[in-house]
């Protein structure tokens, strides 16, 4: 990372900070590179692959819900030193919605950067206070028998949701299922929707 006259001050400051941290033995070029590669390869598609596998393999589903970190590791998604991953299952009786009221905790190492609304004050306040009304606004109506359970990501874990598989997709292949899992559904901000006529194999 060369320093030039054209670099914005923030870039110059970052380069100097990195140089000092390297000189002090806090970070190495290789460790930085590894983290940058992990960040670059993170995407909601990684989460979709875990979900599709869980939908088609009961043993993997058990592992995913019991030890999300190990499940992600088995796909090669887990970077050394990352925070543990917890996965919560949406069912007809409970719908989980993930929020971080204190900041913007999100399983970035797996899913990449959170969507912009996830970091907004409006989402963080409303999700924790009246999630049912928020989900209604987003076009999701849950019966009174379904408990809405908000998950406030406040500490060391990062949380992902295992959405419900639409019954019409039972029997689909892993690759077909990956295509219908959206980023929003991985934090409970959506349910799995799909155009059956267009996508049904």
């Amino acid at each position, binding site marked *: 990372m060369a320093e030039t006259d054209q670099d914005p001050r923030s870039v110059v400051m970052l380069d100097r900070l990195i140089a000092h941290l390297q000189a002090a033995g806090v970070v190495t070029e290789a460790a930085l590179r590894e983290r940058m590669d992990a960040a670059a390869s993170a995407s909601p598609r990684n989460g979709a692959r875990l979900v599709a596998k869980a939908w088609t393999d009961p043993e993997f589903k058990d592992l995913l819900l019991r030890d999300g970190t190990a499940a992600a590791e088995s796909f090669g998604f887990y970077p050394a030193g990352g925070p*543990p991953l917890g996965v919560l299952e949406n069912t007809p009786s409970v719908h989980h919605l993930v929020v971080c009221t204190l900041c913007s905790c999100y399983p970035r190492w797996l899913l990449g950067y959170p969507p912009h609304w996830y970091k907004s004050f409006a989402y963080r306040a409303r999700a924790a*206070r009246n999630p*049912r009304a928020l989900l209604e606004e987003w076009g999701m109506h849950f019966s009174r028998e379904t408990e809405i*359970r908000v998950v*406030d990501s*406040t500490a060391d874990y990062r949380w992902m949701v295992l959405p419900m598989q639409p019954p019409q997709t039972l029997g689909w292949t892993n690759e077909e299922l990956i295509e219908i899992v959206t980023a929003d559904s991985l934090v409970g901000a959506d349910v799995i929707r799909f155009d059956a006529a267009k996508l049904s194999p």
Partner: protein
Amino acid sequence: MLDLPLDRDVTVMADWPEERGPCHVRTPSYLRGKRGRIVAFLGAYEDPGDLAFGRPTVRRKLYHVRFSLDELWPGEAQAGDSILVEVYEHWLKD
């Protein structure tokens, strides 16, 4: 160190370290003084309140605690809806 069994009802400390000076707190203010139930033990981690200031730290047990939204925001949310929050042991009492 507390050892809290699953399904134990606990109260979050009604403490406000923000009023005593610089601090880093991972217990949301809306939970202070509220009653919830332990639903999972999540392991022990270095206290972020110390890590944030580069101080020597201790490992704290972390629990997943479930609170009724109706108790937190009376009259706003539907009865039965809830919120799950990670809370460190030193913020919990019987």
